[in-house]
């Protein structure tokens, strides 16, 4: 039972002070979760604190590799729309 922060994290610090178990570390190149400390907030909060404030879709994943905030869930931007724009900008 532990979550993981992956490379898309932007090191914004929002999650770190919220963790009830001090599991989150301000590591480089991106923040990380000490697996042995993370309880997925069970017993402390109804919702995992890190995943409840993280602004980046996909930055935090569960034990099965599933994003806690899947694409489109926070920004409201359909993922295809973003991919299209990135392709357009690259083509310039």
């Amino acid at each position, binding site marked *: 039972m532990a979550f993981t922060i992956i490379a898309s994290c932007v090191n*914004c610090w929002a999650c770190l002070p919220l963790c009830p178990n001090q599991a989150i570390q301000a590591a480089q190149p991106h923040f990380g979760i000490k697996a042995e400390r993370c309880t997925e907030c069970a017993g402390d909060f109804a919702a995992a604190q890190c995943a409840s404030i993280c*602004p980046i879709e996909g930055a935090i994943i569960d034990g099965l590799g599933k994003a806690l905030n899947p694409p489109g869930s926070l920004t409201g931007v359909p993922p295809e*729309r*973003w991919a299209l724009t990135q392709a357009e900008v690259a083509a310039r």
Partner: protein
Amino acid sequence: MDLPVNESFPRAAAGCGAGSCGATAGQIDGLTDAIRARIEDHPCYSEDAHHYFARMHVAVAPACNIQCHYCNRKYDCANESRPGVVSELLTPDQAVRKTLAVAARIPQMSVLGIAGPGDPLANPERTFETFRQLAQKAPDIKLCVSTNGLMLPRHVEELCRYHIDHVTITINCVDPDVGARIHPWIFWQNRRVYGRQAAAILVEQQQLGLEMLSARGILVKVNSVLIPGVNDAHLPEVSRIVKAKGAFLHNVMPLIARPEHGTFYGLMGQRSPRPAELQALQDACAGDMKMMRHCRQCRADAVGLLGEDRGAEFTLDRIEAMDVDYEAAMVVRQEVRTEIAARLAAKRARGPSPAVSRANPQVVHFQPRVTKAAATAGRPVLMAVAARGGVVAVHFGHAREFLIYEASAAGARLIGHRRVESYCAGDESCGDADSALTRTIEALVDCEVLLCARIGYEPWGRLEAAGIQPNGEHAMEAVEEAVMAVWQQMLAAGKLTVPRSGARRA
């Protein structure tokens, strides 16, 4: 609207949370004399003073607790000049060292702000540690903070403790239905809250925070982002309410939305406001006060006089190498301030510029004044000026912003400023110089004249074709004098009794 002086600025500490009982007659739609005195020489709010004083922001607050559709937390681009975008995150200790170093090198330094890159009050330990140290080590420096307001009510007491000079709250709406189209979620009481419910909490906290600050006599400025089709029709209502609750200024800023920024609005094709739309709303909301029309939406880590960014001189490694005598620096600052105050007083004694009437200094005009057209006058003309330090001093191609003046028989009136891109480093997000020029012309299309120090051959032709007359004849002259000289010339040439010619309308 003219209002009498109200001496009794409320300083009630508590007991009166609701705005219904906090506002006195003097606060509604106007400023108390006490507030007017505090902003008259304020480096951020006084048009006179901002040429002489310097301010800086330190980036100590990375975390945010709400999402706005005009923001993308992934981006931190060096070519970017949207507010809230910074490159170097500092610890409180580093921020304090930087502030003291800058204040020693630039003795005009008088305001330190914390605005981001996230929300300062979502990072209370870092923000208040910075304020605490500075209040102790450099008590002569004014402290200010910008916030989305969500956590404001619970931090008002602490803000008072450090004598915070002014607080800026970004309030885009007072109606949760409008808010739900701007803010998709907030983090509140240990969970993420979405949609209308989130917007309702945000609106409530913002309004409560505003009331609490007003009741404690802290200056509050409200910023709103103008989003066409979302809150444009709603902003006059926002303005009315925040002023009634004691905000001394309501500043309307344009949405900046482009697909390559990766924001919701940018990607979903939400357009930015046209300059004329922005102007109309600024006139409706900010009124005729000369203050803040010079607001530059400065970068959150900008150092220097407003609009002049000296941040590169003060990177962390350079600060480490600096040897600073804090006590001596404070003495020098005091001398510089005394000198500036004397200069401002002398300037006022020489008489007002024709644009501003200070005939009755006890009265502040908050609503737009109806200026009666002088019988013989030519029509008013909008002019864009590439200025630095109150002088026509900038090359057109280097200008990152233009001051917009309205010249008329009544004088030169600063009505705003427009940010543009100068030639930028050329990565794909910036576009090439040609499209930058096109966008600059778009931004200035309602101006008839452009004053700059110098201008290249090609942009000259493009501006002329768009009906904007470039003018480099007043290089290094004082802005208002140059503007009026051009207007007088146009009047003498008979151009001002006929409508503008050759204009390509926005």
